[in-house]
């Protein structure tokens, strides 16, 4: 693949034609206070059973089509052995096939990343994403992370030495204990390691997490204005380091936009395996049983692990997801209606929304949800997402 700019319009749109695969690994050494994903701590004795179940799910799949982008996320995939992770990739390759130059990536906690793991994975994976989160020990401690800044440096050099094509660092900004100065140092440290890709996420208080209970009990919540300052700092510092923003929270060098992410924002299709994993095929969104034990029981009994599915409005979803990208989305009927509505005019006059050629773009990414919500109601007419049909067989969380 040529070294396309991460926000390239052609790249963004062609992602719709790719096929993705998501493999979920629910295991974590411990649960971070802000995390609301489907994770379990200290259940690694079931890891072997789980990998078998996940591979069984892959083998049983009736779907067809080679995979352009495979992603193993979690949880913490690096809690599994290199051998188990390779088996999972091989199962996908055998069942569906991988395209030439397919992106095969996984999420890794820096403290798990040993030379053996790096070398064991390098033959099958070309991209690794490290959960660095911060380079400030106070912030790492607040976030419940076990690694040190030095672990991240070591992990990145090991990945480079093992020959990974693309290295990403995940960062979290805007914890109440983090000053703007501390965030600048975190960014400088991260950029100093020369990553190909950087994801910068605002710390979010999700329902049902330890963080949300702490905030409800009076501990300070993240300040949205401080987070806005931090975000703007991230935009300018990454740009100066040669990384380009291509989505609300994602920055990359040319040729390093994450393909698995691009295809989800383009509304593309992806397989999904493992507990709580979400799949998409031609407007049908389905999700697996969230609980690990329920998932294992279903698979081992030869039943479908799918817990629910829905058929949301594709046009509204195309805009809601597409507008998160710098490349924006082609203007369709729903977008034209939005632009003509008072709501759309308010967004345009506030400089949030703009038309560039045949595309609608969000110029102030920090206010993207204002646009998303405007697309969800009557102003968007038939483009309402809520018009979709949802069938939940069991709670998905």
């Amino acid at each position, binding site marked *: 693949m040529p070294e396309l700019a991460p926000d390239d319009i052609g790249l963004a749109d062609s992602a719709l034609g790719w096929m993705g695969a998501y493999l979920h690994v629910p295991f974590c050494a411990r649960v971070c206070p802000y995390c609301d994903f489907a994770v379990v701590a200290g259940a690694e004795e079931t890891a072997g059973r789980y990998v078998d179940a996940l591979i069984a799910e892959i083998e049983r799949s009736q779907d067809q089509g080679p995979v352009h982008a495979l992603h193993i996320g979690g949880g913490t995939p690096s809690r599994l052995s290199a051998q188990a992770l390779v088996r999972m990739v091989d199962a996908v390759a055998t069942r569906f096939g991988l395209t030439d130059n397919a992106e095969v990536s996984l999420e890794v906690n820096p403290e798990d990343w040993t030379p053996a793991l790096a070398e064991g994975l390098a033959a099958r994976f070309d991209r690794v994403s490290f959960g660095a989160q911060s380079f400030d020990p106070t912030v790492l401690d607040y976030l419940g992370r076990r690694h040190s800044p030095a672990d991240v440096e070591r992990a990145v050099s090991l990945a480079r030495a093992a020959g990974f094509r693309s290295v990403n660092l995940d960062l979290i900004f805007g914890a109440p204990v983090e000053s703007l100065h501390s965030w600048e140092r975190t960014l400088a440290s991260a950029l100093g390691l020369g990553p190909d890709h950087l994801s910068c996420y605002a710390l979010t208080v999700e329902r049902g997490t330890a963080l949300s209970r702490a905030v409800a009990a009076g501990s300070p919540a993240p300040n*949205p204005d401080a987070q806005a300052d931090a975000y703007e700092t991230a935009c300018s510092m990454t740009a100066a380091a040669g990384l380009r923003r291509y989505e609300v929270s994602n920055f990359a060098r040319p040729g390093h936009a994450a393909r698995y992410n691009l295809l989800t924002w383009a509304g593309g299709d992806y397989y999904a395996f493992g507990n709580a994993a979400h799949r998409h095929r031609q407007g049908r969104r389905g999700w697996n049983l969230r609980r690990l034990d329920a998932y294992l029981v279903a698979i081992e009994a030869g039943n479908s692990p799918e817990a629910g599915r829905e058929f949301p409005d594709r046009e509204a979803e195309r805009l809601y997801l597409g507008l998160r990208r710098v490349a924006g989305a082609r203007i369709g009927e729903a977008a034209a209606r939005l632009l003509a509505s008072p709501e759309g005019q308010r*967004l345009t006059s506030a400089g949030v929304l703009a038309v560039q050629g045949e595309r609608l773009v969000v110029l102030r990414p920090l206010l993207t949800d204002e646009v998303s919500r405007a697309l969800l109601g009557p102003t968007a007419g038939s483009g309402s997402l809520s018009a979709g049909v949802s069938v939940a067989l069991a709670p998905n969380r």
Partner: protein
Amino acid sequence: MTETSRIRNFSIIAHIDHGKSTLADRLLEHAGAVSPREMREQVLDSMDLERERGITIKAQAVRINYRRPGGGTYLLNLIDTPGHVDFSYEVSRSLAAVEGAILLVDATQGVEAQTLANAYLAIEAGLEMIPVVNKIDMAAAEPERVAAQVAAVLGIAPSEVLAVSAKTGQGVPELFEAIVERLPPPEGSATAPLRALVFDSYYDSYRGVVCYIRVKDGEIATGDRIRFMEGELTDQVDEVGVLSPRPIQVGSLGPGESGYLITGIKEIQKIRVGDTVTRFDRPAGQPLPGYREPKSMVFSGLFPTDGDDFGRLREALDKLKLNDASLSFVPENSRALGFGFRCGFLGLLHMDIVRERLEREHDLELVATAPSVAFRAITSGGTLEIRSPQDLPEGGQLLAVEEPYVRVMVISPTEYLGTVMELAQQRRGELGKLTYITPERVEIDYQLPLSEVVFDFFDQLKSRTRGFASMDYEPAGYRPSDLVRVDILLNSIPVDAFSTIVHRDKAFNYGKVMVTRLRALIPRQLFDIPIQAAIGGRIIARETVKAKRKDVLAKCYGGDISRKRKLLERQKEGKKRMKMLGMVEVPQEAFITALRIDQE
């Protein structure tokens, strides 16, 4: 028909909480009007709200058949009266239907402001009074001391004051005897043309308008053709009856008797409380003297939060009006709140009650604008009554603004005299007379602007005197005053619902409070929103809702799409409850919360 010499019509008048309803219950029970099984506490307080708040709002009439121990049966009509400072109008109309009154005073509390106010109303109405000290069963009761107070106030001998316990029934037989012996029987001629006073009415969904009447002269019977003299309305009597306390149909009512009257009339507006009923074929020459028309003291806009409910609000107000002559309303249009009604109330309690009944009994969700009194604008073209801040003329044609004053009578233990005076002074009060009722109790007279009294004066008085002071008030004319309209501007556009007329000295405070409250209530939006308070063109206070800077989901990957979309949809749903004022989205709750007056 009962001979008038065997009839006694009376009311019980008392300060709130002095035990009026309990005494009424006891009288009914002793006379066997209500069986113990039926005896619910406070039979007469029939509305839920009255029961909950422990106060009587509406007058009611019940008939008690009393057998004297020495022989002879008497017919006692008890006409109940409301017991709150807001409702003295209702008291006076009940008193027009009776010849005597029981003046009830709590033996643990002593004479209070409403005791006096009601006693004066009774004296004005020419009624015979039986002073009664209640709650003598209580440990803290001081019946002798309180009896002496009552006697001093009324100018009678302490021995004329009866002592009862409405709770235990002690002293009640003596009270029955006093009613028969001391209260005069009604005067009136059975042969004269019919004259009956309509002293209350209500709307019944099955029967139409039900009038409570007191027959002065003549007789009214089922089938009679009758005429409402002032309303110039003629109809036939479908039913007359008495309340015992359940309605019991009787063939006719004669002089001195009270009861209910049902005709074919279905529209409550057609019946004027205070009207005189006479016979169509043999009309009386003169109607009975009416009584003081109720006057709205406090005005507020009531708006349905859902504009589609305007019609239902109108119907609900019409229904309440059937029962409540003191409620007035005219349609009002607010740019901020849409269509609603400017309503007039007797006071803030009355306003609260009406609002609660509208919300509870009629299932309406309402926004009420800041209550205001009726000001007068003197203009080159004449005098205008200003019931809504929007009506205040601007600029050159406005010569002066006047505000209503009231005479406030406070009765307090002497130790709180300084406290009471301080409060009245803060409210622009002018001290009138100071009278020591006893060495420990003082009556303090003030002239105060009504606007300073109606809102929280009573609550303040209660809390600052730890509940020991009581008050009543009466209108005392209009006076010129330095009044200004304070407007609240959102993004430079005035929001009519927040405008108010206040004294210039209080304008800054009102403006500051409102802009501060609104800043906290209005969510951040795409641009800075100035919130200003202004008098005319001059800005007196300002706050800014800063533009929102961040409103975006940090992550939205394959597993997040469905969940995050639902979150956004929920947020969108929340936005529907916003009202657009110009470019500004204002949550419905902002109107309700910002206009709440009890949060100084």
